[in-house]
């Protein structure tokens, strides 16, 4: 069955198949591959509190109306590790590493947003 099918494929067809596969792989990687973020934007009370690069591991304490939110940056990823908000949504969001990802602690008015080389659109833009 397989050899019967393969005999219809000529040398140039393999070239076409290879080109097509490379094209599909490239286009998938550029359109789907979320680019990894390079910096974190931390906001408190609607204003930018700090912008930090993800390259350096660190822990940042952000004050809000309810108390202190703690943001951890480790191995080019960032998360809110502790927050005084009652429902803990932003903490449960976990590690963020792609640009455009965001964790919001609304009660404490703290947000952690990652951004990369280019600004991506998300539904919040509209």
């Amino acid at each position, binding site marked *: 069955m397989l050899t019967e*099918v393969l005999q*219809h*494929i000529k040398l*140039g*067809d393999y*070239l*076409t198949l290879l080109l097509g596969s490379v094209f599909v792989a490239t*286009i998938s990687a550029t359109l789907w591959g979320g680019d990894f973020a390079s910096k974190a934007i931390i906001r408190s009370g609607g204003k930018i509190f700090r912008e930090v690069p993800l390259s350096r591991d660190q822990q940042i304490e952000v004050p809000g109306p309810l108390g202190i939110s703690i943001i951890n940056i480790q191995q080019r990823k960032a998360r809110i590790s502790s927050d005084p908000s009652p429902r803990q949504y932003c903490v449960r969001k976990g590690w963020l590493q792609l640009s455009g990802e965001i964790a919001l602690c609304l009660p404490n008015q703290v947000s952690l947003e990652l951004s990369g080389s280019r600004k991506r659109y998300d539904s919040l833009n509209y």
Partner: protein
Amino acid sequence: MANSTIKIDTTAEDHHIASMAAVALGLTILENAIPSPLPGVKPGLANIVTLIVLSRYGWRVAAWVSLLRVVAGSLLFGNFLTPGFFLGLSGAILSLIVLAFAQHLPKRWFSAVSHSIYAAFAHIAGQMLVVYLWLIPHTGIAYLIPVFATAALVFGTVNGLIAARFMDNPDIANTNTIENPT
């Protein structure tokens, strides 16, 4: 009383084109019975006929068969002049443009498989162009391109293989020739 019958003189080639388009239509109807996971992802079985016609009778006949199939198919399914019709039409036109170039690839190294893959990509490109310029002018549709491109590669290869197998088989290849139309 005037004779109201209109008689159009048809040539043997017209009959042949019509019968080939009818075969393509049959495949289109068959294909519409297959459920699709995503609107727009279809095997495009009718293109097998286009490929065979292209290699045997040339680009002009292939263009006739392909465009007749699109128009007649839309009449059958009741979507003539709807967005779906224009999607199919733009895909078919762009495929034909690409095939006009691809048919000159050296036959020694390139078979219908290559033609089919290039035409499938062109089909998707034509459709996406219409979608972007007319239906959904938003860059968000770019997220769907990898899905469509993968489908084009897979279905293009499969259709090309079917067409190549048909053409390489002398038993079934010569049953319907242009020289002896019914």
